[in-house]
């Protein structure tokens, strides 16, 4: 009977695998203690009482889900801010390197570079606006009261982080185009090192952000089942 209960609790907590494993062990110990402390002689009845006293797995899972959304949201917010900061620093370092290494663009591509730079700039600041806006919204709205509220807050954060990631992707792609144009004109292979490294960092940041958004989406979808959505 206890193993059936543990199975259903683990299933209800499946939105967070590590939590599900941990709770299974914790609750197993709890229920065994409760059965051992039961004054009755009938073990089956003692197990039934221990399970009844513990509560409905769905209700317990819903309480954990709100906590899990909180943790996931914080992680997503931090990932977004870090990605934006890292891309910004990489861009600034690359621009500084071009100045130091005297990497100038040719007259023939100057207009294209100007257009791509404009797209880059607007896309980056749009990403900052969406990302910082999402984090600010997440931090200012307290959603501990109910799972439904925590869920709605998480969905809004995810939407804004997705917008930030999309804009950041446009910005990084523009950076890639600008870097490629400059590198075609580069005279020495050593001039490639900083631009290529900074581009790799930018691409890595966007990939990490997309990965976090995907994980948040998977968890939110699993938790939606608890809400009956």
């Amino acid at each position, binding site marked *: 009977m206890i193993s059936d209960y543990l199975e259903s609790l683990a299933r209800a907590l499946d939105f967070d695998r590590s939590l599900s494993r941990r709770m299974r062990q914790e609750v197993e110990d709890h229920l065994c203690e409760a059965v051992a402390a039961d004054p009755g002689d009938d073990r089956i009845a003692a197990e039934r009482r221990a399970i009844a006293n513990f509560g409905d797995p769905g209700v317990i899972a819903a309480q954990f889900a709100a906590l899990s959304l*909180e943790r996931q949201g914080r992680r997503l917010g931090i990932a977004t801010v870090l990605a934006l900061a890292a891309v910004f620093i990489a861009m600034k370092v690359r621009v500084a390197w071009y100045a130091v290494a005297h990497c100038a663009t040719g007259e023939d591509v100057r207009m294209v570079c100007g257009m791509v730079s404009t797209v880059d700039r607007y896309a980056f600041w749009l990403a900052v606006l969406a990302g910082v806006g999402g984090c600010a919204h997440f931090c200012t709205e307290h959603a501990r009261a109910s799972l439904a509220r925590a869920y709605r807050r998480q969905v809004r954060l995810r939407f804004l982080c997705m917008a930030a990631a999309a804009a950041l992707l446009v910005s990084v792609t523009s950076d890639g185009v600008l870097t490629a144009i400059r590198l075609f004109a580069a005279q020495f292979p050593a001039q490639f090192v900083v631009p290529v490294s900074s581009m790799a960092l930018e691409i890595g940041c966007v990939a990490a952000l997309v990965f976090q958004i995907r994980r948040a989406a998977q968890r939110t979808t699993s938790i939606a089942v608890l809400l009956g959505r």
Partner: protein
Amino acid sequence: MLKGHLDLIVLAALSAGPAHGYAVIEAIRRRSGQAFDLPEGTIYPALHRLEQAGLLASRWVTAESGRRRRVYALTRRGQRALAERRAVWREFSSAIGGLLAGAQPRRKPA
């Protein structure tokens, strides 16, 4: 009403020393004179929330029965939080006590 004070209750139950979930529930029952008979499962989200907030720390130990068990303990931050909440509660309790007894509460209302 109990739900609003669950964090304080759990912190107070752990003030005597580290304990696992079942022992926390038992301590709450015993120290409240059986007045607080919570659904046992509700203690775990509270323990995890307090741990996430840095007020508790936990680790696995092996019990005498051979089962693995998670033991929770107050952190320094948790001890400070408990002291603060205890002071707020005493002030509130004293004010309500005075009000119900028909006497003047110690502090002026805001």
